[in-house]
């Protein structure tokens, strides 16, 4: 996404949230449609079950609907919404006592079938990500898939910057352990990944 497009999306989100705060349902629906894909992808790292993902997304937007008027625009709208989704997902996992179950579900190949994850590197990556604790996995997801900065991830996860760095450090270290022995290291992987 270009800087211009990013700024335009940011302004659009800002305008939509103001409308949501004024009780505009259409604005909420537009925001919902704009975030659905991103949140689906992000929340799939919590749980591979689409029903759970959908429930968390809808819970998130219920919070957005009820709290939009309290948002002070100290951070980007996207950071705020993804932060709500992150906390809603954690709460949902704790409530259902699925924290460990989610990980074990991730380990079931039939529930994580991904048609494009068919290359050696992607198989390795999927396997490696599934071995990480959920906080570390999501830190990687927020940085590498969603493109958030260190400071934004700290806001989303309501953690100090140091904690985010530590989670990222441990996630990277663990992922390295899952490098296929035959790959010959990172250089080889990068070539394959390109």
């Amino acid at each position, binding site marked *: 996404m270009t800087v211009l497009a990013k700024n335009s999306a940011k302004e659009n989100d800002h305008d939509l949230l103001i409308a949501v705060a004024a009780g505009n349902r259409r604005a909420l629906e537009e925001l919902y449609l704009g975030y659905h894909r991103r949140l689906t992808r992000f929340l*799939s790292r919590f749980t591979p079950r689409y029903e759970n993902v959908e429930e968390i997304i809808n819970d998130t937007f219920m919070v957005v609907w009820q709290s939009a008027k309290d948002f002070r625009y100290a951070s980007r709208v996207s950071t705020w919404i993804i932060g709500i989704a992150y906390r809603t997902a954690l709460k949902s996992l704790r409530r259902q006592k699925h924290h460990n179950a989610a990980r074990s579900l991730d380990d079931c190949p039939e529930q994580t079938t991904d048609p494009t994850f068919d290359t050696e590197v992607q198989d390795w990556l999927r396997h490696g990500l599934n071995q990480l604790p959920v906080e570390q996995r999501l830190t990687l997801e927020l940085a590498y898939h969603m493109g958030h900065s260190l400071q934004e991830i700290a806001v989303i996860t309501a953690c100090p910057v140091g904690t985010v760095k530590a989670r990222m450090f441990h996630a990277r270290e663990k992922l390295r352990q899952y490098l296929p022995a035959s790959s010959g290291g990172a250089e080889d992987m990068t070539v394959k990944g390109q």
Partner: protein
Amino acid sequence: MNTIRHGGEARIHEEISALIPWYVNGSIDEVDRQRVETHLPQCARCRDEVMHERGVYQGMNAELGVEYMPAASLKRLQARLDALSAVAPAEALSGPPAAAPRRGVVTWQGVMAASVAVMAVAVSMLAVERWAQSRTRAAPNYYTVTTSPLRAPHEVIRAVFIPTITLIELQAVLDEAGLRIVAGPTEAGVYSLATNSSRPVNASLALLRGHAKVRFAESIQPSVGPGDAP
């Protein structure tokens, strides 16, 4: 002396190494980006880490290939919001709780007010029932071939898209045709579309009909002439 220097280098290496993920995803600020780029030529380990993390970054950005259509879950959200808004006016109508009367003291004004309230509720219920009956009579629970289906506000076109269309593709088709969704999809997958621009309806219709992702499109206006002139 060497130990001190090596200690300093190790600390710098750790600091730079911790920044690499945000260097790779492009969100790092300018000052830190320059620090990383100054350090990289001097540090083979960090160069190796940058290459490794780029591989992870690219792997994590591979397309999932599966895209969920949000229409069904959006409908469930709308139902929850409807339920919420139905509760809110009811609470507003009941007003703030009145001060609790003293226990055991029942005044004649209280009895009269209670009687009036009961009668008002009964009359309201009777009126609602009569209204519901008249509605039922007005709208029979069947359709004939001459029954006109209900139209969504501003609806000008109805369309069915191929089942595998993604949200992005759907949005692109609508943008191109200058249309927006005002209702649907129905159980049969029919979307009601309204015009979003000054483009004539027949031009939007022709575009939809010529599109590979559109299975069916019809105008619901009585007649659509060139330029939509009345």
